[in-house]
């Protein structure tokens, strides 16, 4: 079996496993959503109870349609109407509520508790309320977006985030491979030859980010005039840090891609940098997707997420260190061969010459001029 076939088979297997895991997890998460009953009044009362501005009512207190408490009536508990108004002319010792209607306090009407209207108003037309008068346009129960997400929402959000980050990095990879390939290769070479050195510089760089930022702000603030520049400096600083991290991470992804795709490139053949970059990024994506999809599998999910976080952090840190060492790929360090810029059309006649030796092509020469003939 060729090495490239083996790589492809492993890739297919990983993708199959990944999709399977995601499908199972999403299905499981969706099944975890709370079930609701079929009685609309009971469902509404449950929502009313859970709403921060709602009220707890017994089912027996609710009458479907409009309701009137007569002047002669003196009710001990709560009174409510569902899809109708509630008129009070008598006395209610508890609270009153109209769901989908108004609460009207007519002369002689007296409520010792609260008066609540959902989708209507509490109107004082001669009556009194001892407690709070409250009207809300509609119920607003359920979890806030992002505050208490359901397992399905959490899984979807994590997956979306991972894919979005991946797509952004792919776009950056394309841009870097087009415009700063030489820099990327230099950073990659530095990582390959000075991994521990790069890691150390990366950790130091991460530690120095906040003090460096504060120092910049203070330096600008001291000049008074520079205070105005602080917001711009903050943005520039953040962009610089993110750019350095991204460049370093892409260099690490390229190395990872080189390792994965090693068997796909024939000896002497120039490796397709973009493909290798995307392959390397995909490796990280797979880790994150597995971590996101298995968010509710307990220990396994935690291990996978930890693995994803750890590997990404190490990659970003080593990459950042290499970016610092090479000044964003503009200089080489001792022991690291300088990476030549990508071949331009002018040098296209040159043929790579491996150690085994390959006969060089003849350099094209200009056609002899007529005058020389």
């Amino acid at each position, binding site marked *: 079996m060729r090495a490239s076939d083996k790589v492809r088979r492993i*890739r*297919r297997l990983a*993708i199959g496993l*990944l*999709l399977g895991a*995601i499908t199972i997890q*999403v299905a499981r998460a969706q099944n975890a959503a709370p079930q609701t009953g079929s009685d609309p009044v009971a469902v509404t009362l449950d929502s009313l109870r859970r709403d*921060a*501005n709602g009220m707890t009512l017994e089912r027996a207190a609710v009458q479907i349609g409009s309701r009137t408490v007569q002047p002669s009536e003196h009710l001990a508990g709560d009174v409510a109407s569902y899809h109708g108004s509630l008129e009070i002319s008598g006395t209610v010792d508890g609270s009153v509520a109209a769901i989908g209607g108004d609460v009207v306090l007519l002369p002689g009407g007296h409520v010792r508790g609260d008066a609540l209207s959902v989708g209507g*108003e*509490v109107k004082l037309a001669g009556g*009194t*309320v*001892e*407690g*709070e*008068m*409250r*009207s*809300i*346009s*509609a119920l*607003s129960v359920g979890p*806030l*977006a*992002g*505050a208490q997400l359901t397992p399905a929402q959490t899984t*979807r*959000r*994590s*997956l*979306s985030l991972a*894919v*979005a980050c*991946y797509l952004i990095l792919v776009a950056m990879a394309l841009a870097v491979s087009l415009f700063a390939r030489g820099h990327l290769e230099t950073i990659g070479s530095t990582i390959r030859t000075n991994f521990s050195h790069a890691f150390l510089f990366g950790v130091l760089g991460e530690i120095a980010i906040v003090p460096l930022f504060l120092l910049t702000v203070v330096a600008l*603030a*001291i000049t*008074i005039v520079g*205070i105005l520049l602080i917001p711009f400096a903050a943005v520039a600083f953040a962009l610089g840090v993110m750019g350095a991290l991204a460049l370093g991470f892409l260099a690490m992804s390229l190395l990872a891609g080189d390792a994965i795709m090693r068997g796909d490139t024939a000896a002497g053949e120039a490796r397709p940098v973009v*493909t290798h970059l*995307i392959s390397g990024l*995909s490796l990280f994506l797979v880790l994150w*997707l597995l971590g996101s999809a298995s968010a509710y599998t307990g220990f396994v999910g935690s291990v996978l997420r930890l693995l994803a976080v750890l590997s990404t952090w190490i990659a970003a840190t080593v990459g950042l260190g290499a970016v610092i060492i090479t000044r964003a790929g503009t200089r080489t360090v001792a022991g690291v061969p300088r990476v030549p810029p990508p071949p331009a059309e002018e040098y296209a006649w040159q043929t790579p010459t491996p150690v085994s030796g390959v006969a060089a092509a003849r350099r094209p020469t200009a056609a002899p001029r007529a005058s020389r003939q």
Partner: protein
Amino acid sequence: MKPLLLTLLSLLAIGGGPADGARAWRTLAASRPRGNADSLRVIVRYDAGRISVGAAAAPLLYDARARFDAKEQRLSRSYDSATHTLHVGIDSAVHTSGRSRAGAREEGRLDLGLAAGIPLDIDLDLGATRAVLDLGSLWVDAMHVSTGATETDLTFGSLNPKPMRDLFVDAGVGSIAIHQLGNARAQHASIASTVGSVDLDLGGAWTGEMPLTLRVALGSATLRVPRDAGIALRLSRRIANVDSDGFTERDGVYYSTGYELAKRHIMVDGSATLASVDVIWKE
């Protein structure tokens, strides 16, 4: 690459569905008759939107009206009749997009009316808000205001019936303007601003002494002082500019011209760090 592309498309289908940008606006009106309440403590936590505080109609203890996006915000309100404490809070979701938060800030609002004629202890914790606090005709016994990124306008339109025990304003980032501060009759006022501008109008129908602690950093403070008042500045300056033209320095304190002869006195203590403090005389 084909399986990879298919995987990506599947994942996008799973996780990247069309975002539902629709809002779920809700309105709330909650009021309570004053009954036998002889004081009111008000605790408000409002993190995005416009907020106004003023006087409620006569028979009411409080009258709160809010508009909020139920999809992004959660409004809670409670009243403890034993301690006469009203809690009103609107919290925004943790993971809201910048656009959503900006929308909630622009269109969400809370209007709070409070009973006049009883002592009020007001505690406001504001996030990214625009706040208009008109405390004229209210009896404010104590007031604490903490703001995040806020544009705050605080007015003491009329003389407080009794001296305020404590006035504490801590503005994070943004601007704060206090009008007729003298009407608060604060026994002690403390105004702090971390980044931004402070505009203090020290006018109002007050007499005697007004002790004021002012801390400004990374910004500016403007003190608008009535002509008939004398002001003394005792500010520790750290890379700061304090407008002391026409002031006389004695023992590290800058006194305005005719300070001793003035009918009323303002003593400003505090600090200015990377900031400027200006004094403007008003008629």
